[in-house]
């Protein structure tokens, strides 16, 4: 046993290939070269290239073109001057921040009491409240916004008409086309994020902590504010940051509400850069600060959620006694149901009325009733095409994202490469890019030759894949972390290659979690608007874009029918998901 024997073995030619080679004897004694090419390394090199293609190229291009002159391509700062020297755009930037902050405040106001009532009290009807919050969660916010246009449009909205009929007043009470309207409507579909975070944290606070405060003589109400809420504050903040970022990057709701209301918002400004004459470089320059804000906020969120104090809550989830509310519980339930009505019941009722009407403004009469809107959707070739597009693109997106995420997550979690951290960061990077900005990046790199993908289905699928890759990656990582590596090592020591271990053990054991991940990508992809709006062409339109167009034309009946169809499919998928994966795959915090 010494180096003399070892050396020729190691330097010998053909040091063996991977895979199961069970033949015993001298063959097995050949030693592996450290850097041979095996199928596994080809796979991860491929995955890395795909990540460069999907993530690095568009983001880098965005950054570079923000410093490039439109005509000459030379380095310049003039795009930033063009983008920010206009008062309108500066106001747009400021408005966006204000919009985000206001939505956060309203969302906290809606979410925290609801979460507390559901998680900590003996209020009846918790199931209904939870289900409705889930309903708000899966409602595309632009669809909810359109429901609110039907409810609170200045004159024609149902609430205003009822008000005028009741009071004889000549004007309505609510105007959805206002900053307040924009904020409220956005918050109604954003608050579930904070709700999920907060309810989850409240579930973990042992009521012993509260009882300790009671014993010391604190009143129940003071206990809530002095003990319970501070304990879940990091969770509230964590949810708030997500809501802020989502709101600032939101395109749909502003497009249907802020645009007619002439409220200047950053994402709308970005869109306008692409009206003739297209100034993609200025758009890039305008978008870069948005990305930087996102990076900073997500860093902050990490800091907050990573703090020890929060983790220590997760310790023993000791006994939890729901707080008895006495007769007050009906009042609390009433408040919860009010929020539920605003977010789900009322707008859905308005949409339902429109979907089954010839003209929604004519109200509830038998003559007005029709199934024609749905018929039109399925008989018209163009809308059939759009529906088909939407679901094929989403399915393709989900497949590509899950496969790619699984490969990278495996390579990273099993430490098969030295720079695994870089790959993981690449997969999570799209999180910091608002959809509309990502689309600008994609447009910039892949619309011109040599690839010239603009107008193809591929650019949409690739754009969606990039956008939702972080969801898929985070889920695959979580799944793999829960899987004991010894399961794979048992395959290898018995003579199976790593690939065989993945095929026969990892994938079958992660099946549920992979199905869940697939659904978690499919659902948002099927309604994605902000990425799609820049990348669609006449033949590749999707439901979200069609809804926006219909809303511009005022065809609310058709729009509502289409929206219901989309929702119906979503609900079906959520139910399938529950069936296959288990109850809380959607409302999981992550």
């Amino acid at each position: 046993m010494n180096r003399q024997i070892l050396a020729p073995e190691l330097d010998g030619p053909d040091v063996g290939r991977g895979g199961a080679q069970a033949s015993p004897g001298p063959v097995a004694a050949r030693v592996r070269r450290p850097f041979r090419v095996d199928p596994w390394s080809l796979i991860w090199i491929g995955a890395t290239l795909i990540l460069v293609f999907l993530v690095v190229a568009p983001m880098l291009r965005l950054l570079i073109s923000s410093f490039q002159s439109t005509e000459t391509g030379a380095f310049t700062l003039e795009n930033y001057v063009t983008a920010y020297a206009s008062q309108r755009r500066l106001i747009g930037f400021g408005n966006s921040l204000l919009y985000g902050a206001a939505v956060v405040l309203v969302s906290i106001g809606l979410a925290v009491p609801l979460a507390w009532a559901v998680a900590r009290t003996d209020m009846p009807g918790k199931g209904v409240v939870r289900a409705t919050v889930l309903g708000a969660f899966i409602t595309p916010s632009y669809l909810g916004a359109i429901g609110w246009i039907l409810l609170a449009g200045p004159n024609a909205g149902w609430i205003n008409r009822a008000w005028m009929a009741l009071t004889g007043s000549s004007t309505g009470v609510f105007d959805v086309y206002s900053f307040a309207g924009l904020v409220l409507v956005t918050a109604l579909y954003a608050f579930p994020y904070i709700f999920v975070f907060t309810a989850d944290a409240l579930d973990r606070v042992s009521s012993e902590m509260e009882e300790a405060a009671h014993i010391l003589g604190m009143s129940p109400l003071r206990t809530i504010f002095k003990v319970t809420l501070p304990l879940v504050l990091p969770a509230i903040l964590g949810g708030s940051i997500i809501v802020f970022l989502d709101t600032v990057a939101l395109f749909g709701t502003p497009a249907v509400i802020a645009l007619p209301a002439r409220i200047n918002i950053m994402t709308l400004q970005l869109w306008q850069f692409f009206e003739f004459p297209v100034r993609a470089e200025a758009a890039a320059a305008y978008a870069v600060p948005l990305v930087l804000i996102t990076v900073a906020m997500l860093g902050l969120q990490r800091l907050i959620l990573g703090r020890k104090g929060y983790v220590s809550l997760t310790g023993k989830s000791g006994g939890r006694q729901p707080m008895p509310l006495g007769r007050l519980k009906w009042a609390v339930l009433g408040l919860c149901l009010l929020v539920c009505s605003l977010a789900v019941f009322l707008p859905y009722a308005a949409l339902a009325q429109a979907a089954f009407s010839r003209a929604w403004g004519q109200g509830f009469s038998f003559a007005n009733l029709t199934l024609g809107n749905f018929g039109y959707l399925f008989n018209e070739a163009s809308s059939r095409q759009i529906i088909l597009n939407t679901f094929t693109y989403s399915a393709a997106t989900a497949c590509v994202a899950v496969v790619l995420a699984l490969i990278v997550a495996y390579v990273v979690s099993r430490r098969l490469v030295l720079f695994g951290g870089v790959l993981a960061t690449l997969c999570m990077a799209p999180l910091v890019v608002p959809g509309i900005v990502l689309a600008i990046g994609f447009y910039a790199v892949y619309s011109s030759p040599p690839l010239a993908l603009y107008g193809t289905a591929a650019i949409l699928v690739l754009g969606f894949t990039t956008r939702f890759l972080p969801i898929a990656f985070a889920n695959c990582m979580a799944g793999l972390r829960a899987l004991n590596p010894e399961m794979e090592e048992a395959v290898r020591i018995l003579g199976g290659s790593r690939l065989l271990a993945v095929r026969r053990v990892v994938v079958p054991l992660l099946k549920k979690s992979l199905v869940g991940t697939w659904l978690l990508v499919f659902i948002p992809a099927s309604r994605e608007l902000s990425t799609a709006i820049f990348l669609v062409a006449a033949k590749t339109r999707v439901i979200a874009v069609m809804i926006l167009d219909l809303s511009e034309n005022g065809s609310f009946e058709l729009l509502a029918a289409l929206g219901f169809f989309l929702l119906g499919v979503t609900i079906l998928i959520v139910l399938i998901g529950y069936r296959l994966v288990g109850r809380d795959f959607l409302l999981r915090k992550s």
Partner: protein
Amino acid sequence: MNPMALSVPRDEAAQPRLSLDRITCKFGPYVAVDNLDLDIMPGEFVSLLGPSGCGKTTTLRMIAGFIKPTAGTIAMDGVPISSAAATLPPERRQMSMIFQSYAVWPNMTIGENVAFGLKLRRLDRETIGRKVREVLETVHLAHLEDRYPAELSGGQQQRVALARAIVIRPRVLLLDEPLSNLDANLREEMRYEIRRLHDAFNFTTVYVTHDQSEAMVTSDRIAVMNRGRIEQIDAPYILYTRPRTRFVAGFIGRTNLLDGTCDGTEVRFDGFSLPQGAFENAGRHLDGSVQLSIRPQSIALRRVPPAEDDTLAIRCDLVERAFLGESWDYVVTPAGSGLRLRVAAVPSEVFEVGDAVWLVLDPQQMMVVV
């Protein structure tokens, strides 16, 4: 034809199956395994025994090929399989391993689990079926072939892992604390089971454990590890009666460790001294300060002073006692000394605290340790 017969040299008895030569493994600056040498003969059952974090698992995983050593070589039947420069991947070592978590694949039936390694060896279906049934019979699980692991108890899953590992007739069988997740009774039963299987099939076996009685029951030889090194490797009986280091003496069984100084023909301890000749010490000459290990069981207590010339008798005071059911646990202090010696005595030897007693030492069972 058995191809192995060709590759194994004729002087099989002299050729170790596994040979670890100055193996080192570092994680960053931390040295988990430090310059470790170990030869294991074909058919031998060797345990790696040591406290948590001493590098047992790391050593085992280097043997399996999951970890690459940072220095040194591992050879199997004289052929190098691991070194810092290159390692043969685990799937080509023809070993088997039983993991602490069992790692029985929950998506396959018991039969499929056991057949997995055989299928990889491209055996025909009948042979596979026959071998699976045979091995399941050996581990008393024949009736559960079509069940899924989730429907099995922990002990049964453990047997599946065993069957899966031995059915392929591995060149080396590796076990990493295979019993640590079982309850005490089952653990006791399984350690005999493992020894029985070893006697039946004679696999070369490396067994990692931190439970000394487990190692004692199963092993031909035990390697006691401490901080990445092997302190001593010997048969269980030798290890107990002839510990070579302070660590081994303290780790295997209970012992009294006494500090002494050599002074001419005497070794002086706190409060008494013993003649140098009393120590059986493999001919080593003692000088300077020494350390003595005396097992509590090897000390006898007497009420009356022994014969004048008995130099190995010491007068003591009994200061503490506890009755443990199977034995008395006495603590005695030699007259004029601060030492506390533990003595074990059978239940019928009753002494009271405060009694003056005589200790009689057995030179055969005293070891000078380093």
